[in-house]
């Protein structure tokens, strides 16, 4: 075969289109996703456009114009896409170009050209320009033109918003192959690292703490397929609020010295905000940070510093709110915090150590919390969406439009899911009355899309003789496994690092040890294997068809014959 027979590989990228920042990524020949830096070397590219003189600035440069040129700088526009003027919250755009009513939607009025009337740029137009800049950066980096992209959006993006986004991208010549959900992209970024064709069934919580909002989603991962079980959003909680506590802190300090409030002057406030954001980012890495602003207000310079302890205290209320959101989304999914197997922290603000640690405290030690502060192997939380999008883009790069349309069609995506876990009853060892042991080995977790099939082997019995395979629907129950009263004192030791006291209190209160165990809820069917030798292995397969017909196969490994039975599906 000659090289020319190889079809021309399409160049596709993933785009995370954020309200604050966007990022772009591609998947290399090794199948690994990589985030691309733009010409200025930024991987987190501020979703900001600024018009100064006759120039259009983008990204970090545009963001810096928030100080000198706020009215002609457009920021935080993503969430305005496809929304009516009445439905948008202009708060975030208060210190930049204000949204105005335009046709049925929202626009910005900016001095695009020095010697013309102000231009009215619809959100769609702004989006087109922003995506063009991202696409150009990617093309520049890869040295190839871009054939298509996958873009991530929040789970609450409506159908019409998605449509407008695809059109906006098309407007700059970039085809959108698919628009996918941010938390699912984040999940895919991590899932792609696991080198297995049979990924474990997990229930995953994705918490995305961005710049202007916080989104949480509970996702069932079953056989490598993902289903959103619940989502929750807080539109008034994000990195900006964390910046604001530092703004207030330093403003008070400044006032004490100079009797002027830098927050009262728009430009001073913009300066202070930008610097506070940098200070905040530094505090994610080190224990203290300097801040230094020339001519902050009234021609006075400002130099100060803050340590992490202080910052954690100042931002405690915000962290509490994130914790509250986490608890509420798990509740909304009708689950227990203990049922979450993995937590993925996404979004720039997830770099904050205290935030990650507080979330980790909510969960048992067996729940992995993926964030820089809690796991050394974590990915950069701000890059997850772009990576996931790039992985998805590479998977469908060669699909034609019809293929994609059909693969994402609700007739394919909408699938019956099991409402109960399905498994077989096992004997539990006698220790502590077997109270804390699983009574059921689960083959198919609840929320598994059907058709689905799982196979497992067991020891028949330890004595030999007949073996009963009892197929059941299972439920999870909390069991108190608190060890008998022991000297539990002295765990916290001397309070030498004088860490936030409140947390320690919470630890002390919560001394019960709870374990979740599977219990039988309903017996579905039984199969009998005769005269199985002591210690022989038995293989059981459960196969649930699309109409919920259950087929059970049980056989002795290496033996003859076996039992096969079918339970008809419930009337629908």
């Amino acid at each position: 075969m000659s090289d020319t027979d190889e079809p021309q590989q399409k160049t596709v990228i993933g785009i995370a289109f954020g309200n604050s920042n966007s990022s772009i990524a591609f998947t290399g020949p090794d199948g690994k996703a990589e985030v691309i830096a733009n010409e200025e070397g930024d991987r987190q590219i501020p979703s900001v456009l600024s018009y100064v003189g006759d120039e259009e600035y983008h990204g970090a440069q545009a963001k810096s114009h928030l100080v000198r040129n706020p009215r002609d700088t457009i920021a935080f526009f993503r969430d305005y896409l496809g929304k009516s003027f009445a439905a948008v919250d202009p708060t975030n755009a208060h210190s930049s170009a204000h949204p105005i009513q335009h046709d049925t939607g929202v626009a910005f009025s900016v001095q695009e050209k020095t010697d013309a009337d102000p231009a009215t740029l619809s959100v769609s137009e702004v989006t087109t320009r922003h995506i063009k800049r991202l696409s150009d950066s990617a093309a520049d980096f890869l040295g190839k033109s871009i054939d298509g992209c996958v873009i991530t959006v929040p789970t609450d993006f409506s159908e019409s918003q998605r449509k407008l986004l695809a059109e906006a991208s098309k407007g700059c010549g970039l085809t959108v192959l698919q628009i996918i959900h941010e938390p699912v992209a984040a999940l895919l970024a991590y899932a792609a690292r696991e080198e297995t064709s049979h990924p474990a069934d997990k229930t995953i919580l994705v918490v995305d703490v961005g710049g202007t909002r916080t989104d949480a989603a509970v996702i069932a991962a079953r056989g490598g397929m993902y289903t959103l079980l619940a989502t929750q959003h807080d539109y008034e909680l994000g990195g900006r609020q964390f910046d604001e506590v530092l703004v207030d802190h330093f403003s008070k300090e400044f006032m004490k010295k100079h009797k002027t409030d830098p927050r009262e002057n728009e430009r001073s406030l913009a300066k202070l905000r930008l610097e506070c954001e940098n200070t905040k980012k530094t505090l994610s890495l080190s224990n203290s940070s300097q801040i230094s602003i020339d001519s902050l207000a009234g021609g006075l310079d400002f130099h100060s510093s803050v340590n992490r302890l202080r910052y954690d205290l100042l931002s405690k209320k915000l962290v509490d709110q994130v914790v509250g959101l986490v608890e509420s989304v798990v509740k909304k999914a009708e689950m227990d915090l203990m049922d979450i197997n993995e937590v993925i922290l996404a979004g720039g603000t997830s770099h904050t150590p205290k935030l990650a640690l507080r979330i980790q405290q909510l969960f048992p030690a067996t729940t992995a919390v993926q964030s820089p502060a809690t796991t050394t192997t974590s990915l950069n939380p701000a890059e997850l969406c772009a990576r996931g999008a790039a992985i998805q883009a590479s998977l469908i790069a060669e699909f034609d439009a019809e293929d994609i349309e059909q693969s994402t069609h609700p007739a394919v995506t909408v699938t019956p899911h099991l409402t109960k876990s399905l498994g077989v009853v096992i004997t539990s060892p006698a220790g502590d009355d077997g109270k804390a042991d699983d009574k059921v080995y689960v083959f198919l977790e609840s929320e598994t899309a059907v058709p689905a099939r799982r196979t497992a082997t067991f020891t028949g019995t330890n004595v030999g003789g007949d073996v009963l395979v009892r197929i059941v629907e299972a439920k999870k129950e909390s069991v108190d496994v608190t060890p008998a009263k022991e000297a539990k004192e002295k765990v916290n030791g001397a309070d030498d690092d004088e860490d936030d006291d409140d947390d320690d209190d919470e630890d002390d209160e919560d001394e019960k040890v709870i374990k979740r165990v599977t219990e039988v809820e309903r017996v579905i069917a039984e199969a009998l294997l005769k005269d199985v030798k002591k210690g022989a292995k038995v293989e059981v397969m459960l196969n649930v068809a699309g109409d919920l017909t259950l087929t059970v196969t049980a056989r002795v490994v290496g033996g003859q014959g076996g039992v096969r039975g079918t339970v008809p599906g419930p009337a629908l």
Partner: protein
Amino acid sequence: MNVVATAHTLLAPEAEWSHDGAFHIIEQLSKPIHRNLEPVGPHYLAHARRKRHHRTFSEDDRIVAAQQAKNVEDADSGEISEPEDPLLLSRDPKDWKNQDHYAVLGLSKYRWKATDEQIKKAHRKKVLKHHPDKKAAAGGIDDDNFFKCIQKAMEILTDPIKRRQYDSVDEFADVEPPSRKAKGNIYKLWNPVFDSEGRFSKKKPVPRFGDDKSTKPNVEEFYNFWYNFDSWRTFEYLDEDVPDDNENRDQKRHVERKNKAARAKRKTEDTARLRKIVDDALAMDVRLQKFRKEERLQKDAKKIAREAEEKRLAEEAKKKAEEDAKRKEEEEAAAKASKADAKKAKEAAKNAAKKNKRVLRKGAEDANYFHPDGAAPPDVINNVLADVELLITKLDNEELDVVAKKLAGLKVADDVKGVLVDSIHSTIGKGSAKESDYKILLQ
């Protein structure tokens, strides 16, 4: 195919397998729920490939399928909407202390019951509507007064401490207690009062006033709880502003002292107020009379029961005494009868013995005293009779009877002698006599 090797052991059948074949169905699987798979990742794409094989999907399929799927995003709930009072909209934000924070957010009907979630949603709604940037953009006047009111309400209602302070003095949430003379259903009158007062309780759950079906322990617990009410209600919200310039330290301290005293006073008044409410409720609580009456009835019933019991016991005792007497009489009669019987038997035995003795003597006489020919000489007769008498003394009545029966009908002298000799041997065998005691029969 992927096979998971588990370390678990299956069950042994608990009971005899009583079904045909080796597979037995008990129930069907639970009904499924329709959800949207995220069309992302290699495993999904494999699923899609399988599912759409040889199939195309029409727009209709899309609609039908999409309708089936459970939506995880909340539809914008319109539950929080109240008409906005023009007076409220023109409030001066500086006067925030007198502002009804719940009304500002449109949560008047929820008040202290509003959840954090509701407050968040309500706030967002108000922000979307009243943000000053929007009003300015729409050409309206640049008036952010009401927006400031909204932000203040949010600040207070989302801070747990500030919200408590405000809820403590939120008189719109108070429910006026009925006067003691109020007529009507006391449960309708009092339940709302205590439900409302209960918001200040440190202890949860707070027992309700209840209804006419409440049990006595319930009602007792209720009053116990409310007479020992542990309230978190505080009165900081009504503090006079403390001047915060450093120059006027004395003035500052003075105001602080005054505030502290005022809070304490209000707290005492509040405790007294609640006490009066509980007193009033207690005074009007017809259930207490009902319980007292029930108790009295119960007591009466007990007394009646006790008396009945006593009567029953007395009757029983009497009956028993009568029966005892009767039984005794019968026993005595029986004893008498048996005594007579014994006497008779004794006599009969005596007679029988006499008769038997006679048989023995007669036997000897009939056998001519075992003398071979002619009349037996008197010494022989004497000796034989002496031996027979001796034998008789050695035999008890039964033995005597046996011997007499053996003798009956015997005519031959040797036979008679034989029986007597056997009998003598057996008495000797028993050791009650010696051979030498007998004079003639053993020769």
